[in-house]
Each structure stands twice: as structure tokens, then as C-alpha cells.
């Protein structure tokens, strides 16, 4: 297990290094970062002065090493618009994004698992068919459209939830559903097909022939095995949720990192974009690492192999 941990950790560090290279390169994609970061009406002298001050005339690898050495100390420079340290701005907004992502994940787990188990254990029946329809529709709906429709239905036509903002539970409901529905559908579809397959296995038949009740067989024997792939999906979906939060936060005026980054992108506030992209990517790498280890630990076939 320690070997696996070391191997995965080393890999994660390499990925973070790659992520840092991309975050650094964002600003160099068009060739001249000074032109990108300054307002369009900046004079040639101002551009040259800025270029000199920021060290953009140095070789690229020197700039990268300088940027990386600062980044590992949490220094991404000042946000061009807010004139505050970029990382501090990200840290300030992070709790809101975590709150929304966790709430969306809860929605997905609390709806997706029971629906997946229920429809998956019913064979070719109406619940199974309806579950499939729900799964397909859930995966076909763009997050931003679902968000707008929720606002229209439950914010305007039947006004039971506030349209925007953060602070109360009722303000969390619509963004969490909008963000979590795709993952709900994904978990449901996966579990539905897993349950269908696991319930055909010999050991399930043996358990049934021993006289165990169908409910006990489903929950005690089938679900435990069918849930394993869900662990991986949940880990991968957390990345999707963090990405989806970028759009959801903008629509519901949720004061999180996603909304801040969209504003930063629109304002070409590159230090803030770099800090946000880097921090979110590190978050996703960490989540993937934990998921990977959790999966290894949960599955005795992998755990005992090493």
C-alpha cells in the first residue's frame, strides 16, 4: 500500500508541475503578455516599461522558474483589477465554491444512489425505463439552461426560492440542483447498469437460494459491489462540478471562485486567472489522488495484489 501511495504521490507532483507550466503559459499564448495585460490604449513606452518591470524580456524558462518559485510560496502577484494579492482573493471566495460543490455532490449522491439502486434492481420494468429517461435527460441538459429554467420556474412563476445570492439555505437549493443534476444522472445510470449486472452474478443467486430476502441481497450483497465504480465516478465528477461551478456561480450571482474567475477572464486580469486556474487544478489533482487511493483501499482485489 505504501508503494502505491508513493507511486501516486510522485505522479500527482508531476501533474502539478505540468499544471504550473500551463498556468504560466496562459499569459504567453498570444506572444506578448504586456499587450495582453495592459489596456488597449497603453502607449508603446508604457508597454515597454511594463514589460521591463515584469521581466517579460527575460528568456521564457527564467520567467517560468521565477513564477514557479513565487507560486509555491503562494505569491501569484497582485490582481490587476483589485490591486490585492491574487491568492488572497481566491482564498476569500473558496468557501463559497466548496459549499456549492459539496451541496451539489450531496444532491447527486442522495438522489443518484437510491434512484440507481431502485431502477437497477427492477429489471426491464417501468421504473427502470423511467430511470433511463431521467438519466438521459439529465445528461443532455446544459447546466446553464437548467439554471435559467429553475430560476424561471421556482424563482418567478412559483416564487419559493430566491433568484440569486448566498447566505441562506434557500439560496443554495437552486444552484445545488442545477450543478448537481448532471452528476445525479451519471451516478444513477452507472449504478443502474452495475446493479443490473451484479444481480446476475452467481453469488447473488447463492445468497437468494440460502433464503435471504431480496431487499437484504440487494443492499447487503449487490450494492456493496456495485458502489465501487461509483467511488471513481464521484472523484471524477468533483472536477466536473468545480468546472460547472464556474457557470452556475455566474448565473446565480454566487460569490465563489468560479464567478471571480469569469470576471477576471473578462477583465484580462491574468495574475488572478493564473492563481485561480492553478489552485482549482491542484484541488482536482488532490481529489483524484484521494479517490484513487480510496478505490485501491476499498477493492481487495487491488489491495491484496500488491
Amino acid at each position: 500500500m505504501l508503494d502505491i501511495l508513493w507511486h501516486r504521490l510522485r505522479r500527482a507532483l508531476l501533474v502539478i508541475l505540468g499544471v504550473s507550466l500551463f498556468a504560466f503559459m496562459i499569459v504567453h499564448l498570444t506572444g506578448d503578455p504586456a499587450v495582453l495585460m495592459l489596456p488597449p490604449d497603453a502607449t508603446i513606452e508604457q508597454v515597454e516599461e511594463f514589460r521591463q518591470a515584469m521581466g517579460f524580456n527575460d528568456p521564457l524558462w527564467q520567467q517560468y522558474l521565477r513564477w514557479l518559485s513565487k507560486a509555491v510560496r503562494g505569491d501569484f502577484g497582485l490582481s490587476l483589477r483589485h490591486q490585492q494579492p491574487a491568492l488572497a482573493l481566491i482564498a476569500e471566495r473558496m468557501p463559497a465554491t466548496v459549499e456549492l460543490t459539496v451541496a451539489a455532490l450531496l444532491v447527486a449522491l442522495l438522489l443518484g444512489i437510491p434512484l440507481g439502486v431502485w431502477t437497477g434492481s427492477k429489471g426491464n420494468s417501468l421504473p427502470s425505463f423511467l430511470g433511463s429517461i431521467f438519466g438521459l435527460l439529465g445528461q443532455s441538459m446544459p447546466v446553464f439552461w437548467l439554471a435559467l429554467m429553475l430560476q424561471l420556474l421556482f424563482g418567478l412563476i412559483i416564487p419559493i426560492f430566491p433568484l440569486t445570492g448566498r447566505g441562506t439555505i434557500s439560496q443554495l437549493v437552486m444552484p445545488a440542483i442545477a450543478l448537481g443534476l448532471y452528476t445525479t444522472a451519471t451516478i444513477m445510470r452507472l449504478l443502474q447498469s452495475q446493479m443490473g449486472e451484479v444481480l446476475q452474478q452467481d453469488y447473488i443467486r447463492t445468497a437468494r437460494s440460502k433464503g435471504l430476502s431480496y431487499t437484504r441481497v440487494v443492499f447487503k450483497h449487490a450494492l456493496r459491489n456495485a458502489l465501487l465504480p461509483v467511488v471513481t465516478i464521484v472523484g471524477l465528477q468533483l472536477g466536473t462540478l468545480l468546472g460547472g461551478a464556474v457557470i452556475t456561480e455566474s448565473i446565480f450571482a454566487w460569490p465563489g471562485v468560479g464567478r471571480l474567475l469569469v470576471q477576471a477572464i473578462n477583465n484580462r486580469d491574468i495574475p488572478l486567472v493564473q492563481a485561480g486556474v492553478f489552485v482549482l487544478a491542484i484541488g482536482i489533482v488532490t481529489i483524484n489522488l484521494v479517490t484513487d487511493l480510496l478505490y485501491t483501499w476499498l477493492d481487495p482485489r487491488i489491495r491484496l495484489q500488491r
Partner: protein
Amino acid sequence: MRLMLTCKRALVGVCLLILVTSMALLAPLIAPHDPGEQNLAARLQPPAWLAGGSLQHPLGTDHLGRDILSRLIYGSRISLLVALIAVAVSGTIGTLLGVAAGYWQGRIDSFIMLLADVQLAFPFILFALAVMAVLGPGLRNVIVVLGITGWVAYGRLLRAEVMSLRAREYVEAVRALGQTDGKIILRHILPNVMPSLIVMASLRVANMIIAESSLTFMGLGVEPHIPTWGSMLADGRAYITSAWWLATFPGLAIMLTVLGVNLVGDWLRTTLDPRLRNTV
């Protein structure tokens, strides 16, 4: 029973796709109005079945008095065009990298898979938004961004497939006969990974349609003057309280198209590649 059910679903999917493709191909013939034609006197007109609506604009008009049905019809062109080209670009990149990683393995494989892991560490939409912000909005840039960012799914799938094929006896036999790597890949490996590639490509079309509309919705996609479903939704967002139809119809169009693609993709998966049956 299961196959029959899948076939029925596939039929629904095929019908939806025929509808959208016909709309895209026949847009100039079937659209009742020019999609850019403004008529401020008829702005925010509701759909025909509501009070104040008229059959001249069956799905109503937007804030500039443009016909929503015509814009929906023309919008299908961009959605399909971007999705298909982006799938072709990302599929080509993913195939090249995936086959290289799976066939030659070793350091090439480690490097390509590291590249894939790095890309997966970025939330897709954030990655695309950041790149679009630097490159600037535009149809070509959207295709470039979606094409470049979408390769990982193909790369990982093909790497695994090629690794397994490479170890087969028939591949070893042709290698022993002196065939070059290039010929082995082209004649003996690629034809065998085609079914998986087709399935993956079909499912990725759906992702690309949503990705394009998301980017355009966020104001960093296709140029504003080109009618697209994403831009129609973005326009409609401001009028959600007074004119619900502006945001509702383009969203429905996206959802039904993606649903059609997913249904056909699922059917292809079940038919062409039994190993993928239980993945989501």
C-alpha cells in the same frame, strides 16, 4: 428485450438527429425569416399560441424583433458544424497520441499520459474560457480550443485498446514477417480500434455541442452576430422575467440534439463494442 429497447431509443435518437441535420442543411429554404432581420416594432412578441403572438413568428421574437424560429434553424448549423469539426480534430489528435502511447509504450506513453493527466486536472470549461480569453472569441478559436482540449478521452481509450492488440499473436506474426511499425498500425491495429473510435466520437459530439453553447453563453464563443443557440440563451437570460421564450426554446433545441446524439451513441456502443456496454 434490452436490445429491442435500445433500438427503439436509437430510433428516437435518429429521428431527432435527422430533424436537426435537415434544419441545418435546409436552413435558407425552411427559415421563415432572415435570422438577422430586426423589427423593433415586433420586439418580444410571444409564441403564436399565446395572447399577442402571431403565426408570422411561431416561436415569438427576441429583444430586437428577430424571429426566434429562424434563428433556431440557423443556429443548428453552427452547433453541428463546430461539434463535428471539433470531434474530427480532437479525434485525430487523440488517435495519434493514443496509438503512439499504446504501441510504443515506455517513455512516449508516460509523457502522453502525463499530458492527459495535466489536462484532466483543469475543469474543462475553465481551461477553455482561459484560452478563449487570451485568443479572443470567434468561430475558428472555438473549434481550435474544443479540438485541442477534447483529445484525452480518445487518447486514453485507444492507448488501452492498442496495448491489448499489440500483444496479440497476429500482430507478433506480422512483425516477425518484417512489417514496419507504420504498416502494422495502419493495416492491423487501426481497423481493429475503429469501432471504439466511432462510439467515442459519436458520444463526444454531444459534449462538444454543450461546450460550444456554454462558451458562447459566457460571451467567449462564436461572434455575437452569428446566430447560435448559446448566444440566443445568453440574450434571453436578461429577459427571463418578461419573455421566457427567449431562453426556453434554444435550451430545448440543445437538449433534444444532445439527447439524440446520446441515444444514437448508446446504441452504437451496445452494437459495436460490447466491452463498453456498462460504462457511462
